[in-house]
């Protein structure tokens, strides 16, 4: 049943968010620290365990894959609700800082990626 997959996804999502929220309280930030990340790791582990035991059939899996496929349209909707006007009216500080930060981070991607590959080879 597809709903089983959706329920597994919902369970992992809520558990991950709970861990993230508790971590936020513990670190005294009052936000959610890595809730989505924890949920993703939980889903990967649950998925692997259930598949090994033969408890996850294709139909249940489709319930999760449906939401995974909805991801792109959700991102388009998310772009449509951004505060674009404010971003462009933040003055030169906002524009210059945003531009420099984004450009620098882009350029650092290949540098740090190479680092990842090097440690992989040496180990």
């Amino acid at each position: 049943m597809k709903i089983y997959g959706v329920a597994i996804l919902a369970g992992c999502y809520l558990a991950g968010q709970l861990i993230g929220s508790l971590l936020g309280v513990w670190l005294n930030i009052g936000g959610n620290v890595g809730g989505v990340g924890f949920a993703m790791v939980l889903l990967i582990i649950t998925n692997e365990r259930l598949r090994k035991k033969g408890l996850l059939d294709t139909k249940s899996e489709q319930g999760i894959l449906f939401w995974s496929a909805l991801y792109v349209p959700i991102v388009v909707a998310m772009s449509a609700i951004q505060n674009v006007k404010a971003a462009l009216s933040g003055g030169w500080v906002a524009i210059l800082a945003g531009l420099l930060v984004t450009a620098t981070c882009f350029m650092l991607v290949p540098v740090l990626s190479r680092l990842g590959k090097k440690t992989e080879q040496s180990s």
Partner: protein
Amino acid sequence: MEVLEKLLDKNGLIFAFLMIGLLMAVSNWISRKLLRNKLPGTALAILAALVFAWFGGTKGVADFPMFAGMALLGGSMLRDFAIVATAMGASFTEIKKAGLSGVLSLFIGVILSFFIGTAVAYALGYTDAISITTIGAGACTYIVGPVTGSAIGASSEIIAISIATGVFKVILTTIFTPLVAKRIGLDNPNSAMVFGGLIGTTSGVAAGLAATDPKLVPYGALTATFYTGLGALLCPSVLYFLVQAIV
């Protein structure tokens, strides 16, 4: 007309599904037929969505009652739920392989973004530690900015600038990621995790990677999700003290 308005008001989310579906169909058609796939359909749809958002207000098109459902479809609940679902296509071994460079990129991403932001603020005439720190925090993400600003007591004007900086970063990342992806080697799980850690703003990373290659989304999202937390941890504390000491 009144009947239609009432109907759309009641079924906001469903109407949003229809609108996004149509927008993506048109974008994909333009991308295929007119642009010969030079710009991916997804990137085009996101770009169009940003333009529509510009006509709206603080919540983009969702400020128009007719499109209020867009705020639910594009809101953080469904976004995060869908991001978690993409983990189904991720491999745990790849994540473990890129673990170290992912963590490293997180720290470098937060600290570097913060200092570039503070440098710009200082260069453009801000001299007090509170304003400089808040703008630097905004250069991390549009959430770290106001969190830091209210923690150290910045004025609402400065907080608004820090939010604008963060949102502008999201927009730039969204537009330019698919365009520069090849040049910065953004085509494998390892570099996607580094990318997520360096840029950090979940919305930008999510949208940029979706337009580049949806297979990379879970890897980028995994590191990016820790970024805002790390920024909110470091900016109002260690990094603020550091700015205080320098200024």
